[in-house]
C-alpha cells in the first residue's frame, strides 16, 4: 500500500502512518525554489501598484497634486482618498470595530500612513510615480508617548470619529475581583511592585505583505491572491466592504513566506489593489517593501504595565495589573469580540492564586495601528511576561530561588480542571514535573555553582526561569467570535475509489507544515499513508469555512476537526464494511487501516476496499448514501492550555554589557504531539524570536513620531550567531477535551522565552550591580545603563 512520496528521496527510512517524525511533503517544492509566493505570480495584463506614504506622524493634508505623476509614461492611474470616497472605500472597518483610513483624506495620523496609490506598468515606474506626487502637509503635534495620550492637552488624533473627545481607543476592561484582590494584598506578608514595559516589536516575516486583485468585469468574479492567515474571514470582509457578492470572491493564498500574525489584518494596500482592479478591469499587484512592512503593518505588543504581586506563607497569593495599551492611530487589534484586551487576563499565570485583578485600557497614538501579532496568542505573550517577571521580582525580594517559589505556588495536578481567578478553566497539567525536567536538562544546581564561581572572578553569568500556561485554540462559539463570526473551523474529508484521500481544511499554513501534519491526523485515524492524502487549503472556493491560523489554533481547532471528520468517515466505513462482510457493525473491531470481525481477524475489509465498494453499484447499508466522505464544523468546547518550563543561561561582558544567550532549555507540554520534528521546529523558531525580542527587536519613535526602526539595519533580527543550540525536552499531559489529546504549540516559545532571558539578565546583575529590573530590549547600551543604576524604559 505504501507509495513513495513524489520527488523526495529516502524511501528506506520509516515513514509513520499516523503520528511520528514524518518528513515534510511540502519540502519537495521549497527546496527546489518552486514555491508560489505572492510576488511569483504573473497574470496577463497585470499592472503594479505602489503606495505613497506620509512622512509625518500627524499632519493635516492641505493638497495633493498628482499631475506630474500622471504624466509619467507608464503610470496608468493615481488614486487618492477622493477617488475612493466615490466608491465608498476611503475608510474600512477594522477587526476591532473601529475604522481605518484606506487612503488619508483629511489628515495623516502616523508616519507611513497610506496617502496615494499609483498604478503603473511595472513596479519601478510605480515607485517613480510616487516620487512625483506633491503633497502639502500642515504638521501637527504628535502623540508618541502612550502615557501622555490621555493628558487633557494631548492633541486629538481621531477627530474623524463622531463623539471622540480624547485619545481613548478602548475603555478600561477588567477581569478578576478587585475587592477580593485588595483583601489578599492587605493580608499578604510581602508585596512587590514593578513598572514593566513590553515594548513595540514587529513580526517581520521574511515575505512582506501584498496582494494581486483580479476583477473580471464581464463575469463579476474577483480573484484575489494574497498571503493571509484567515482567507475566509477576509472574503467576508471584502464582500461587506466592497459591496460584492461573497460567492463571487475567491481568495487563494498559495505559499506564504511567514505570517506570525502579520498577515491577519486587512491592509489599505489590499483595498487599493481591489479598488484598482475593479475600476481598471485588469489584475493589480501590490507588494510592500520592508520599510512599509515595518512602518505600517500590524506591530506587536506595546503594553505599559504596572504589576503588583503578593505572597503569604511563602506562596504567591495575589496579582494586580494595570495596563495602558498603545494601539496606534487606528484600533485594528485582532481578538475575539468579547475580549478587547485579548487573553491578557491569563496573567494570573500557573499559580494557585487567591485573587487577581486586571485592568486594561487602550489609547490612540500617532503610530501604526496594530498590537495583536507576533505569536502572541492574543496578548498572552504580554501576560506571561508580566507574571513571570513579577514572580522573579518577588523571589528577588524574599531572597529565595525563583524555582522554589514557583514550585510552592503552582496549581497542583489534582486541581485540574482548574478555574482561575480571572475566569479561565485550565484543562490539564502537571507543572512541577515539567519544571523538574527542565532543571535536569539544564543541570540547574551545577549552573548555580558555576555562577557562584564566576561571580567570584568578576564574571557575569545569569540564569533565568519562566513557567507559562497559555490558552490557545480559540474558541467555543458560546464565548468567542471575531467580527461576529464564530471561531469554529470546518473539515471536509473524501476518500476516493482508489482509497487515496483528500482533506480540505480552513487552517492556513504559513510554514507550520500542515500538508504533512494534517495528513498524519487522517493517517492516524484511517490508516491511509500520509503520502496518499492530499491536504487542500488556502483556497476559499475549495475549502470549508473557518477562522484561519493564528493564536496556535490549527491543531486545537482544525486538528480536532480533522480527527472528528476522520472518525465520522470511519464510522460510515464500519457500516459499509458490515454490509460487505455480511455481519453487524457491532461485531467489527478496528485496527489501523481496516475493520475486521472480532474473533476472526482474517475476515476484514481494508479502507480502500471499503472505498471501492462505496463508489460501486453494490448495495449500501439501509439509509446510507454512496461514496465515502464526511464533513464537520468543529466547535471547540474550551481553549487548550499548553504549558512549559524554560531556563535561559546568559553571559554578560562586564565592560561592554553585551548579553550572550549561552544556553536555552525549553521543556514544553503541548499534549499529544502529532509530529515531534515539526513541534521541535516550531519551538526553535519561537525561541529565536524570543531572543530577538528580549535583546534587540524594537520599533521606536522620536518625539515627532518618526519611526526609528524602519529597515533591517535598525530593526535587528537574530542571526544564527545569536541563537544557541536549543535544548528541548517534553512532557506529555494530554488535553482531556481534544479528540487527539493535542494542545498546540506554535506560540508557546514566544510566550515563554522573553521573561526567561530578562530574568537571566537581572539574575546576572542583581548581586553585583543591584539591578532588580530592566526593560527589553536588553541591548548593550540598556544593560550598561542598568549596571550604572540608570535603567530607563525604552521609547
Amino acid at each position, binding site marked *: 500500500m505504501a507509495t513513495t512520496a513524489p520527488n523526495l528521496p529516502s524511501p528506506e527510512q520509516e515513514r509513520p502512518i499516523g503520528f511520528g517524525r514524518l518528513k515534510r511533503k511540502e519540502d519537495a517544492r521549497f527546496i527546489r525554489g518552486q514555491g508560489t509566493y505572492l510576488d511569483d505570480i504573473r497574470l496577463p495584463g497585470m499592472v503594479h501598484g505602489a503606495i505613497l506614504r506620509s512622512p509625518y506622524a500627524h499632519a493635516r493634508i492641505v493638497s495633493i497634486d498628482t499631475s506630474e505623476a500622471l504624466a509619467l509614461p507608464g503610470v496608468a492611474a493615481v488614486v487618492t482618498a477622493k477617488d475612493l470616497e466615490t466608491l465608498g472605500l476611503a475608510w474600512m472597518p477594522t477587526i476591532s470595530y473601529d475604522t481605518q483610513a484606506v487612503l488619508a483624506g483629511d489628515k495623516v495620523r502616523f508616519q507611513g500612513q497610506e496617502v496615494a496609490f499609483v498604478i503603473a506598468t511595472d*513596479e*519601478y515606474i510605480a*515607485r*517613480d510615480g510616487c*516620487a512625483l506626487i506633491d503633497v502639502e502637509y500642515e504638521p501637527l503635534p504628535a502623540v508618541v508617548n502612550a502615557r501622555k495620550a490621555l493628558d487633557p492637552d494631548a492633541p486629538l488624533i481621531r477627530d474623524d470619529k463622531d463623539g471622540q473627545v480624547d485619545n481613548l481607543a478602548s475603555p478600561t476592561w477588567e477581569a478578576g475581583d478587585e475587592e477580593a484582590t485588595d483583601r489578599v494584598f492587605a493580608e499578604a506578608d510581602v508585596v512587590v511592585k514593578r513598572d514593566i514595559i513590553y515594548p513595540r516589536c514587529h513580526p517581520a516575516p521574511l515575505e512582506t505583505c501584498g496582494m494581486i486583485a483580479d476583477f473580471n468585469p464581464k463575469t463579476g468574479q474577483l480573484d484575489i491572491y494574497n498571503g493571509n492567515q484567515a482567507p475566509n474571514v477576509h472574503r467576508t470582509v471584502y464582500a461587506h466592504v466592497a459591496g460584492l457578492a461573497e460567492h463571487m470572491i475567491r481568495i487563494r493564498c498559495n505559499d506564504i513566506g511567514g505570517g506570525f500574525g502579520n498577515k491577519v489584518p486587512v491592509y489599505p494596500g489590499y483595498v487599493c489593489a481591489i479598488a484598482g482592479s475593479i475600476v481598471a478591469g485588469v489584475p493589480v499587484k501590490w507588494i510592500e*517593501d*520592508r*520599510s512599509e512592512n515595518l512602518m505600517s503593518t500590524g506591530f506587536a505588543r506595546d503594553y505599559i504595565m504596572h504589576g503588583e504581586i503578593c505572597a503569604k506563607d511563602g506562596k504567591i497569593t495575589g496579582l494586580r495589573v494595570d495596563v495602558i495599551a498603545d494601539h496606534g492611530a487606528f484600533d485594528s487589534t485582532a481578538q475575539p469580540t468579547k475580549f478587547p484586551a485579548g487573553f491578557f487576563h491569563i496573567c494570573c499565570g500557573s499559580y494557585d492564586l487567591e485573587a487577581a485583578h486586571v485592568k486594561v485600557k487602550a489609547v490612540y497614538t500617532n503610530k501604526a495601528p496594530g498590537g495583536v501579532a507576533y505569536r502572541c496568542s492574543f496578548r498572552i505573550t504580554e501576560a506571561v511576561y508580566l507574571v513571570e517577571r513579577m514572580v522573579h521580582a518577588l523571589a528577588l525580594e524574599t531572597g529565595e530561588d525563583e524555582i522554589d517559589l514557583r514550585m510552592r505556588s503552582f496549581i497542583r495536578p489534582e486541581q485540574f480542571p482548574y478555574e482561575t481567578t480571572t475566569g479561565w478553566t485550565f484543562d490539564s497539567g502537571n507543572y512541577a514535573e515539567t519544571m523538574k525536567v527542565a532543571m535536569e536538562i539544564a543541570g540547574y544546581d551545577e549552573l548555580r555553582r558555576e555562577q557562584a564561581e564566576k561571580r567570584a572572578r568578576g564574571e557575569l553569568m545569569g540564569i533565568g526561569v519562566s513557567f507559562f500556561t497559555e490558552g490557545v485554540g480559540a474558541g467555543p462559539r458560546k464565548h468567542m467570535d471575531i467580527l461576529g463570526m464564530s471561531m469554529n473551523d470546518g473539515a471536509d474529508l473524501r476518500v476516493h475509489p482508489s482509497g487515496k484521500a483528500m482533506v480540505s481544511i480552513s487552517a492556513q499554513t504559513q510554514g507550520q507544515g500542515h500538508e504533512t501534519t494534517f495528513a498524519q491526523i487522517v493517517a492516524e485515524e484511517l490508516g491511509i499513508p500520509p503520502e496518499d492524502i492530499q491536504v487542500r487549503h488556502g483556497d476559499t472556493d475549495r475549502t470549508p469555512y473557518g477562522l484561519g491560523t493564528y493564536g496556535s489554533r490549527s491543531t486545537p481547532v482544525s486538528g480536532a476537526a480533522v480527527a472528528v471528520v476522520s472518525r465520522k468517515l470511519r464510522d460510515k466505513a464500519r457500516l459499509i464494511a458490515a454490509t460487505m462482510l455480511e455481519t453487524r457493525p457491532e461485531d467489527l473491531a478496528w485496527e489501523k487501516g481496516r475493520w475486521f470481525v472480532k474473533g476472526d481477524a482474517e475476515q476484514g475489509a481494508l479502507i480502500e476496499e471499503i472505498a471501492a465498494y462505496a463508489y460501486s453499484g453494490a448495495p449500501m447499508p439501509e439509509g446510507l448514501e454512496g461514496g465515502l466522505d464526511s464533513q464537520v464544523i468543529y466547535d471547540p468546547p474550551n481553549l487548550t492550555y499548553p504549558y512549559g518550563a524554560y531556563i535561559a543561561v546568559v553571559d554578560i561582558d562586564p*565592560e*561592554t*554589557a*553585551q548579553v550572550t544567550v549561552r544556553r536555552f532549555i525549553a521543556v514544553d507540554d503541548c499534549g499529544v504531539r502529532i509530529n515531534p520534528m515539526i513541534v521541535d521546529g516550531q519551538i526553535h523558531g519561537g525561541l529565536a524570536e524570543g531572543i530577538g525580542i528580549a535583546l*534587540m527587536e524594537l520599533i*521606536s519613535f522620536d518625539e515627532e513620531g518618526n519611526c*526609528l*526602526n524602519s*529597515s533591517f*539595519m*535598525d530593526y*535587528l533580527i*537574530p*542571526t544564527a*550567531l*545569536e541563537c544557541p543550540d536549543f535544548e528541548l525536552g517534553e512532557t506529555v499531559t494530554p488535553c482531556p477535551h481534544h479528540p487527539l489529546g493535542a494542545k498546540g504549540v506554535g506560540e508557546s516559545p514566544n510566550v515563554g522565552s522573553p521573561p526567561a532571558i530578562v530574568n537571566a539578565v537581572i539574575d546576572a546583575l542583581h548581586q553585583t550591580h543591584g539591578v532588580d529590573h530592566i526593560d527589553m530590549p536588553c*541591548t*548593550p*547600551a540598556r544593560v*550598561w*545603563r542598568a549596571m550604572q543604576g540608570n535603567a530607563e524604559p525604552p521609547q
Partner: protein
Amino acid sequence: MQTPAPFGYERATSVDGAIASLVAHDGDARIIAGGHSLLPMMKLRLANPEHLIDINDLDELSYITETADQIRIGALTRHVELQHSELLARYYPVVGDAEAVIADPVVRNRGTIGGSLCQADAAEDLSAVCSACHAQVVIRGADGERVVGMDEFHLGPYMTVVGDGEMLTEIRLPLRAGGSGMGSAHEKTERRAGDWAIAAASVAVWIDGGTVADIGIALSAVGPTTVHVSRAEELLRGATPSEELFEQARAIASEDCAPTADGRGPVDYKRHLAGVMTQRALRRATARALTQEA
C-alpha cells in the same frame, strides 16, 4: 523592494578611462565597485547619482602586494580577500580582525576597501584600521596621482578629499625594516553580528627593545569621522607598555571622542565603550608585538 531612480551606466575598461568619465560628467557621476554601500542608499533614494561608472572589471586595482617598505592594497580588493590574506595576517592582523566583523560574509564577497573608505561612514571600520596603521592612500585624477595620509583623507561624515574627478586607487601600509616587533588589533562592539560598530578601536604598535617606537590608535563610530586618538598615542610613544598606561589611554579615548546619541546607544555608553575597545585593542596589539619581537 525599493528601487533606485534611473541613471546612466558604463563599465570602465581602464582606470584612466573611469577618471575621464568622472571628469566628463562633472560631479554627476559616481564610481561603483561592490555597490553594497552605494546601492542601498540609491534604493532608499538618499543618493541619486545620474551616472554610474562600474569599475568591477579593473582587475589591475585588485591586489595585496609587498614591497621593500610597504604593503600595497588595490582599492578594488574585496573584503573577503583582505580577511583571508596571509600577508596581512602576518604583518597587520588588525585587518583580519576588522574584516571578520564587517557586514556579513556574503556582503564581504563584493564590498571593497576602496568603497568602504570612500563611503566614509563614521562607523566604518577600515577607516580606523588605516588610520591606526598610519596608512596612506593614493588618489588619481586626470592630472596624476597624489598621496594622502588618513588624517587628511576624511573631511566629515560621508565626505573625503577624493574630488569629483578623482578615484582612490591604492592603500599603502608601512613596513618597517628589521628588529621592530609589530602588533595590531581591532576591537569592536556591535548590537548584533553584522551591525555597524557602537564603538570600535584599531591599534597598531611598533615595539623596539621593550618600548613603543610608534603607535597608532583610531576609533570608529564615535565621531563625525574616524577619531584619531593622538593624545593616547603621545602617552604611549617612547614608553614601556603597561596595563597602567592602557588604563590611562582608555580614559583619554573616552574623553577625546565625540559620539552622538542614536539607536546604537547614548553618548555616555559610547564614550565608555570607546575606552574599553581602546584598552582591549592595546592589550592585544601589544601582546602580538611582543610575541614577534626577536
